[in-house]
């Protein structure tokens, strides 16, 4: 495997995106299931 400058930039961007997703998952680990569900932010029942 070789590493070029472009590879490092790609790795940095992908790492940032993946890190952001993991950070959000970690941040909302104590939120309700509704809040964590992409399709059901407002799932209160009335």
């Amino acid at each position: 495997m070789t590493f070029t400058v472009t590879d490092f930039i790609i790795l940095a961007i992908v790492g940032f995106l993946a890190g952001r997703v993991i950070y959000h998952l970690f941040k909302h680990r104590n939120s309700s299931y509704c809040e964590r569900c992409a399709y059901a932010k407002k799932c209160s029942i009335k």
Partner: protein
Amino acid sequence: MRVALIGNQNSGKTTLFNLLTGHNQKIGNWPGVTIERKEGRIRSTDFEIIDLPGVYSLSPYTIEEEITRKYLFEENVDLILNIMDSTNLERSLYLTTQLLELDIPVVVALNMSDIAFQRGIRIDYKYLEDKLDTTMIPISALKKTGMMDLIQVIKNRDYRKNKYTHIYDLHIEDCLKQLESHLDHSHKRYISIKLLEQDEAFYSYHQNGSKKIVETLCVTYQRDMEQVIADERYRYIEQLRDEAIKSSIEKMTMTDKLDRIFLNKYLAIPIFMAIMFTVYYLAAGPFGSMTVDFVDKYVSIFSSWLSTSLTSLGASAWSRSLVIDGILAGVGAILTFLPQLAILFLLISFLETTGYMSRIAFFLDKVFQKVGLSGKSLIPFIIGSGCSVPAIMSARTIHDETEKKMTIMLTPFVPCSAKLPIITLFAGYFFGDYSGFVSASLYFFAVVIIILSAFIMKQVLFKGKTSSFILELPNYKYPNFKYIFKDVGEKVLAFIKQAGSIILLASIIVWFLLSFSFSFKYGIDPADSMLAQFGNIFSWILYPFLGELSWEATVSAMQGLVAKEQVVASLAIIAGYSEEVSDGVFIFNSAAFSFFTPASAYAFMVFNLFSAPCFGAIGAMRRELGTTKRMWKAVFFQTGIAWVLATLVYQFLHIFEVIG
């Protein structure tokens, strides 16, 4: 001063609350449940108002009724604002007569008085006011009429203080008087009635001699006293109705006319099937597939351009592969289904806004009652066509524990939005012109399996009575396009977010596991990758319904636990690594998935439809079922059913393939 707003469901309570409070609202949840709790201040006053859940009575048969009763009984409420539906006074009066038994003044807002008038219903308000000894104000929350009168009456406290009595027969009234003399609490009449009804929650109010009074009366009637009280209440309400309501021959409304067709004994189910077939045919059939091809073409063009650009910028083969074969293949595969999902969201939202969805719950209620589920289970099932998480959460409003558990376990069987890419991918490729029919068949298959599973569970695991269900059928309405587009927009955005977060992360992980061996060597044969090694351990499980030992399909199906869309993303990433063996559509033209036949494709869809849902929904099941053990039982039950059904379907359909 604290005002409690109370009324039947769909009586216009929330509209009235919004009108009375404007933007001055605080929204939260009732303790321990996700039922919304709204508080606010009435305009131009400093009066607090609370919007209590919609109920039909103060008997605690549902969580909403329990919350309402507890609040009225334990909090210091100064005034009850009871909203009644003028077009259905008889039913609304059941709750009103119960409220009048509390020691709290009641003001009645007669909503939809304009619609009642249009329908030829003439209400003698004065007569009702005198009989019930309460203040009544005709309003129309929708047209905002009567609001000032209502606010003025509340503000000036210019209302009757209810001294209404005597609605039961002489025996009961005598008995109530005796019981009241034994009590030293507020709400004496209400408590006395509860003691007569032998409501367990009120046993602690029994004083010396009061039990004897109740027992004597029970002997006189020789019937369930709760039923006796309910009969007496209805008798009184019917008497009120006959005197206070003069109805010219009621004109048939558009809703009545449409319900004659949509709720017809013989036509309801065929119409429902035709509508759902049309929905799935439009979303997943030839038209939907065309949209997929269209987006797929542009994703491919973008992919080629990006690959060339990265090469010219000096990217190595592995980093280019990460972006193109990993991220873009996974996320792109999901995004190609976006137009199809948008069509499905649009059609479901259209049905919701017209009022048809409530009818489904109404006519399927009878079928569900027979298999041990109440119509209330249908609400989670309908919500489940969007997402299993809110659907499972909504099951907590089911009072009966066994029905609740059954509903929670069966809700993930409903095809949610995330499962649609799997269905349309396989149906579109293997069933061509019949793809819409096949997609719709899976929906009906799910309904049949839910009914059968409920029946078996009720016979074996959860024996007992099924509770009754009251459902308010809203009027049919012209579709509100503003609401539809907002709703579809929100769901589409949620899908894009899901693709850009969980699917993106999972695609990177799949790419990594597929590109490297356990010794972290890059550029290996995919069959030697970590993902393949892992898949090989479990591939025998899927063999009975795939007809092939495929680690590729096995790991893809397992990724459904992360998110159901990820199954398609994984198939696309693995196919990208695999050799092209035919001219067919991408994924199925690869050596990894060319073994799929219509029989195994249908079986694979069935397995993904019924197997354990995503982690989010499993978490919701854990919470609602109460223990981890029950959650595991549910997961094994669902996956077991999925495996059995997929195997049966494959073995059956495979016979035709062999003969053919």
